[in-house]
């Protein structure tokens, strides 16, 4: 078998050969539609012996099907001097002169295209769908000519070992900018975001030096460059001041506010990356920020009289959770916590867990008589209960523990310790779980088998100090089990215990299992 295709195909490549070859692939090799399948079923038998399973081949020059194993196709090739045949099972082209399968670039191209088309067709026949669904199949990457050139011109390769610190870099504090530094550390260690930026997927449509997404891209290049000296993010700071005026100035700002403002500006500047699918709807674009961070929060308002439910779904980038000790009514949850273990946190009386906060967030709340809403069922103002659940979970879920109280009465920081787990299962807080509970199906064991709602902790932002003066640091996860503490310019190794014992202000969780859409 020679690396280039054999010269014997040249006899075939005349006239309308491409179209003829496509027809053969479509009808007899990879039959996508019901019609072609019927035809294949009926006609694909050996013209000599009638068998259908002994590696049937089709002659490329005429309509003849023959077994390979019993050499019927070989006899045909010899007698008719038709020296090319195609394997009906795998689509390989056999040359009888070379006596082997040959690989011709043009023919391979056609084969691949037809195969993809057939897969797509099969994927849409939903009524014939069995559990082994087909859909878009994974095919290995093959470099294009241009990519091969680039690889040859840039021979330097970086090897990622378990001990290497690539991706870790300190950030100089430019005057109370730790609120920005801590969020940058969390974002540069968000795996999907890192993959997006390192593969250069942003296409900029803005004036040079004014796009925050471009600056993020630069930032990722800096972080993964291998330099160990701390990076000075002055350009980032300038862009943030330009696009989020409320964060400008040298005072300490809230890291959570910075996160939301940054996501907002990035989302706005990603306009060039939206492949036009949902360009008309400003709330529902397809940019990388939305793909990673946007979830859907379902709010159900139930009228207490007619029990009609009015549902709205709002997008969210983070979940803000009230803490015990705040002036909003918090406890008790349920009479007598039973000390059971949920999500790996032990619920001893006294210690609050993230799950407690989430349960409180999703419990039905009675909107008192002073907050009656107009019920469309009763056509009058009635008392109602409101309940929040997760309709759609984002790939990265950010939990914001509301530690800073800015009510009319007081301004203070709530320092209650809230324990959070390394692995989190969001199933109990989903809208679908609530519906099945209401329908009386207590599906707990089924839900824990569902991998879709499992999350892993990858970054924790902490605040030390008081409301007036404080400092932000971040714990981030590198590789699978290594944690590092990022304190502005200083990066140190941390243990999992350090992370889990910390106070916790912003908790970043990443979905464990990702599916293609």
């Amino acid at each position: 078998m020679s690396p280039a295709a054999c010269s014997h195909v040249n006899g075939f490549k005349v006239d309308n050969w491409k179209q003829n070859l496509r027809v053969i692939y479509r009808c007899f090799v990879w039959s996508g539609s019901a019609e072609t399948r019927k035809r294949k079923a009926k006609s694909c038998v050996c013209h000599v012996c009638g068998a259908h399973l002994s590696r049937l081949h089709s002659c490329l020059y005429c309509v003849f099907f023959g077994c390979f194993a019993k050499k019927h196709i070989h006899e045909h090739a010899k007698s008719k001097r038709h020296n090319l045949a195609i394997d009906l099972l795998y689509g390989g082209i056999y040359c009888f002169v070379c006596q082997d399968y040959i690989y011709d670039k043009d023919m391979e191209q056609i084969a691949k295209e037809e195969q993809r088309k057939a897969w797509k067709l099969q994927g849409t026949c939903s009524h014939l769908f069995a559990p082994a669904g087909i859909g878009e199949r994974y095919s290995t990457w093959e470099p294009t000519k241009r990519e091969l050139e680039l690889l040859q011109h840039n021979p330097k390769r970086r090897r990622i070992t378990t001990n290497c610190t690539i991706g870790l870099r300190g950030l100089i504090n430019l005057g109370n900018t730790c609120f920005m530094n801590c969020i940058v550390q969390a974002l540069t260690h968000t795996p999907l975001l890192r993959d997006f930026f390192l593969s250069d997927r942003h296409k900029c449509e803005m004036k040079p030096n004014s796009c925050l997404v471009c600056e993020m891209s630069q930032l990722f290049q800096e972080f993964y460059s291998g330099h160990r000296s701390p990076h000075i993010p002055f350009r980032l700071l300038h862009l943030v001041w330009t696009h989020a005026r409320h964060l400008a100035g040298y005072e300490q700002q809230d890291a959570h506010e910075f996160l939301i403002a940054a996501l907002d500006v990035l989302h706005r500047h990603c306009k060039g990356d939206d492949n036009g699918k949902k360009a008309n709807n400003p709330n529902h674009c397809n940019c990388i920020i939305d793909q990673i961070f946007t979830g859907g929060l379902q709010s159900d308002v139930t009228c207490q009289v007619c029990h009609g439910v009015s549902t709205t779904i709002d997008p969210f980038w983070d979940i803000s959770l009230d803490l015990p000790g705040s002036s909003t009514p918090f406890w008790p949850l349920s009479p007598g916590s039973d000390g059971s273990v949920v999500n790996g946190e032990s619920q001893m009386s006294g210690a609050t867990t993230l799950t407690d906060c989430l349960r409180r967030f999703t419990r039905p709340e009675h909107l008192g008589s002073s907050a009656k809403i107009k019920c469309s069922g009763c056509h009058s103002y009635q008392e109602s209960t409101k309940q929040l659940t997760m309709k759609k979970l984002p790939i990265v879920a950010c939990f914001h523990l509301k530690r800073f109280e800015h009510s009319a009465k007081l301004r203070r920081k709530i320092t209650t310790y809230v324990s959070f787990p390394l692995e989190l299962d969001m199933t109990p807080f989903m809208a679908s779980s609530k519906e099945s509970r209401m329908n009386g199906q207590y599906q707990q064991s089924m839900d824990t088998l569902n991998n879709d709602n499992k999350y892993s902790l990858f970054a924790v932002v902490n605040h030390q100090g008081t409301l007036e003066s404080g400092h932000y640091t971040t714990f981030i996860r590198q590789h699978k089990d290594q944690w590092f503490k990022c304190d502005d310019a200083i990066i140190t190794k941390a243990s999992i215990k350090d992370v889990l014992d910390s106070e916790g202000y912003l908790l970043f969780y990443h979905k464990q299992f990702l599916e293609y859409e």
Partner: protein
Amino acid sequence: MSKESQLRALVNQKLIEMGERERLKELLRARLIECGWKDQLKAHCKDVIREKDSEHVTVEDLVAEITPKGRALVPDSVKKELLQRIRAFLAQHATL
């Protein structure tokens, strides 16, 4: 053609028409990858090529060498599962 081979041909036709053959192929592919069969055979292929003259190995040579081993290495659980699927399909379309 004997009665048995006629029946076989008919079953095969039905499988292709309903697209079930493709689905079964996909299922088999997934199971064989999962249990490591694909990797085992790939390694065996590489050994065969190394032993023989690597410039002149044809597909036919490889097929002849690895078919017996490939057939033997398929786990029983995979065979059972596919048989079950085919049986279920035939039961469903029992108009034959």
